[in-house]
């Protein structure tokens, strides 16, 4: 077995395990410097994940902020992450996003399509004339939560397979299979002509 002395994160940044543990223990004391460091280190990655799952930029900013607020309350209530901060943050991000979707769907006056459509479609959002953020996000609703999570980590946050595997506690092979099935399911949703 490989003993991971260093966690290499997916965007070239490295954070030695020991440092992350020190950081966490300081964060538990609500040490401002440690907290600022955590925010600086993870905000962008979490935002990328969230914005992949909600089309509206401003909503994504709010939800990302909410993830960090939940970190603070978890630290206060002493059920903060014990060792892997990053995995914990992504787990919370997934919950925050699904809470958001659930709330949006529950609100009766908002139609599903409206809730997913951004108010001002960004021209850059139209990919080769067919794949849009809206259509992808709508299609994602028919995937399993695990499939959505993996797609967002891989394609939203650009996280390497091995990091996704570690974050989800699965083998790399399992993640690759999950990803392949998620892509196939998504392609089917986006274009019914795609054969199984």
């Amino acid at each position, binding site marked *: 077995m490989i003993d991971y002395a260093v966690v290499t994160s997916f*965007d*070239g*940044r*490295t*954070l*030695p395990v020991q*440092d992350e543990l020190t950081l966490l223990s*300081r964060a538990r004391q*609500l*040490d*401002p*410097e440690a*907290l*600022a*460091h955590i*925010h*600086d*280190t993870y*905000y*962008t990655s979490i*935002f*990328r994940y969230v*914005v*992949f799952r909600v089309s509206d*930029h401003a909503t*994504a*900013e709010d939800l*990302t*902020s909410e993830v*960090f*607020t939940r970190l*603070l309350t978890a630290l*206060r209530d002493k059920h903060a992450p014990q060792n892997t901060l990053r995995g914990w943050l992504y787990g919370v991000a997934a919950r925050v996003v699904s809470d958001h979707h659930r709330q949006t769907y529950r609100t009766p006056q908002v139609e599903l399509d409206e809730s997913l459509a951004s108010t001002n479609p960004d021209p850059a*959002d139209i*990919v*080769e004339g067919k*794949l849009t*953020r809206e259509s*992808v996000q709508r299609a994602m609703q028919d995937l399993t939560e695990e499939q959505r999570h993996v*797609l967002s980590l891989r*394609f*939203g946050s*650009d996280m*390497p*397979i091995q990091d996704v595997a570690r974050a989800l506690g699965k083998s790399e092979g399992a993640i*690759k*299979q999950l*990803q*392949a*099935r998620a*892509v*196939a399911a*998504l*392609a089917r949703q*986006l*274009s019914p*002509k*795609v*054969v*199984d």
Partner: protein
Amino acid sequence: MDAQLEIKLIECLDSLAQGESPDRILARYPHEAAQLRPLLETAAGLTTLRREPSEAAKMQARQKFMAQADLLRRTASRKKVGFLPRLAAGFIATTLVVVVLGAGAVAASGSALPGDPLYGLKRTVESTQFSLSGSAAARESLTDQFAQRRRDEVKQLLSAGRPSEVAFTGTIEALQPEAWIVSGLVVQIQANTQIVGTPQINRVAEVRGVTGPNGLRADSISIESSREPGVTPTPEATQTPPITATPEAPRTVTPTTMVPPTATPRPTTTPRPTATPQPVEVEFTGNVMAIDTEMWNIDGTTIVVDANTEIRDSITVGQRVQVRALRYADGRLIATRIELAEDGGGGNNSNSNDDQNSNENQNGPDDNSNDDDGGDDGDNSNGNENNHDTDDDDSNAANEGEDSNDND
């Protein structure tokens, strides 16, 4: 999707992640290309949906996050003070003031902001409350409460974009050359901002400045040597000499341009009184806290790293580096060169680089070992080793005497 096709799709997605184009990948699977193409194109399309957060949103989120953390810390520590004494003191004092001045005006003054007609009354009520409160604990909690009020006022002035002179105390939460965060408020540091004391995260600072539509500019900041928020007496001179936040030098040369040997140096004798729009060259050493593709965090300061940045060594998080950067008028810091610091981890915060002479003339372009004060002599590790130094906690006992914070 059958198992065979799934295996091939997995291989395709691997290749796609390596950066290969769908067409090239599909060329290897002539029999399944028709089935695989829409899947692969979907995956390729997904990568184009990536979005980055705006810098403004990031900064705002950080500010909110730090303010929330501050609030949590306060509520955690406030439990010790005791609620009843505070309540009693507040009640008695308010009653007396109301009797003397009339309830209407006092109530109305509560929401007054600096510059409002009733603001003076608000402060009078506060100082009456303060002088009538009996115990030291009550006074301390009032000081806390009033400090919070000052900050709330600043917040309101800022959100209204209203210009006014302000003064408040708070805890330093972040230090960057262009701006600090003091108890959740972004304080812009100007070239002429007077800074007394040693800026350090967690310390209490008294900020005087001006609000306006573009935020809060600091005229002066005095930092207390004590960490304990609450008692905020007169700005005491700390043992360290006053330093200015950022090394200031009205240089007009950009470090990347090579000045021909014959060029006569420009006269830079008289510094201009106002900030020039040209970037200022700064140099400092610090510990790398995070490395991102286009931004590095060095001791809490965000530095932009672009294609022109020369990164001399292979640098990882935690190492001590020497940074040369251009500071622009809007506060951005763009690194021109980053290399491992020669002292390799001793903490001397030598951010006074005024003696640094220009790096561009004929005496060898690669000769950059120019930090003649290189910190490896004598290992003065007094530096901004930013982490919890609780060693000066006891020094705030000395501050108890003069709580003359009631102004007006």
